[in-house]
């Protein structure tokens, strides 16, 4: 039981570290460039901005969920 918990914690820490690197890259590559465009959209085309906002948040959530699931599967597979 104890070894299982340690294994799970190890896998989680590794996942968190890889995930953090990916997220930092995402901040600098995607969100910085999106900022200006979204700001303009918010000022000039409110309805389009509202639609794009929902699509972005749902799209990002689906991608992140898949990334974390995949990471966990790979890390668990390696630690077992």
């Amino acid at each position, binding site marked *: 039981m104890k070894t299982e918990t340690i294994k799970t914690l190890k896998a989680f820490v590794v996942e968190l570290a890889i995930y953090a690197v990916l*997220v930092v890259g995402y901040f600098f590559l995607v*969100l910085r460039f999106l900022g200006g465009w979204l700001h303009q959209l918010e000022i000039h085309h409110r309805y389009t*901005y509202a639609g794009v906002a929902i699509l972005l948040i749902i799209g990002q959530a689906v991608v992140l969920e898949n990334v974390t699931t995949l990471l966990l599967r790979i890390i668990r597979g390696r630690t077992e």
Partner: protein
Amino acid sequence: MFFPISNSHISPIYLAIVGFLIGILGGFFGVGGSFIAGPALRVMGMDWNFAVGTDLAHIVGKSVVAAKRHRALGNVDLKLGLLMAVGTIGGAECGAQLIQALKRAGNVNFVVSIVSIAVYVSISTFMIWESGKTLLQNKRSPREKVKGAKSKQDQSAFQHVTRSIQRLNFPPMIKLPVSGVTISLWVIILVSFVGGLFSGFLGGGAGYIRMPSMVYVLGIPTHLAVGTDLFEIIISASYGTFSHAIKGNVDILIALVMNTGAAIGAQIGAISTQYFAGPTIRLAFVPLPLIGAAIVIYTLVAGHNL
């Protein structure tokens, strides 16, 4: 990091950590976590209107992650979630109208504060009593441990009232095979409408009302109530996000950054529900409405919103 839409400077690490913490709560309890996210954004100097709208957008993202994970665990009743979304949206609109009426009467802050404190404290008191009693009953006569789908079947000290509500024969009666419940459509609509009403009236997703009422009124097992509530929140919070974005109250960049933390927190919360029985989850839920009540009392005493 500068966020041009809301004209605010907030550390992305702070946002990701707040998202992570709310993600854990959301994944485990099926709540939006606006009672934490709103004040957390306000503390960083964000305007109240932006804090409310941006929080709603973040709730959508976090709920997608948590609901997807809960669905993989078999904890989402899609049919119930879709039916409830109808009532929630209707209720949220009525709640917003009620707020407008109170604004015109000039006593909106006081009325909303008193109502919310009463609601939060009542929910917590009732849940302490019910889950404590159920856990005590289980201790006295422990059930055989079961695995798989049967392990989600719940016990509740309030079950006799729930059964009476399920027996109310107001057609059409709706069969919910995933939850193992047959109940009148009108009861489902009423429960979701009341949840939506509080959501529009008090702000946030009102998961602190909907999740307990799904368990105690509709008789949905706790694990399924958590997962289904999250699925329902995706629909109702998307509607709220759209409505707020049109009014210029959403900084989607902040919501996206918060969601990077929430994505991992929500998964941890959702997976953790597997290790706890329904009454234990309900007992652990008790402090959440009390935190909400404490925040409202603070705003009443201090004279400004957090």
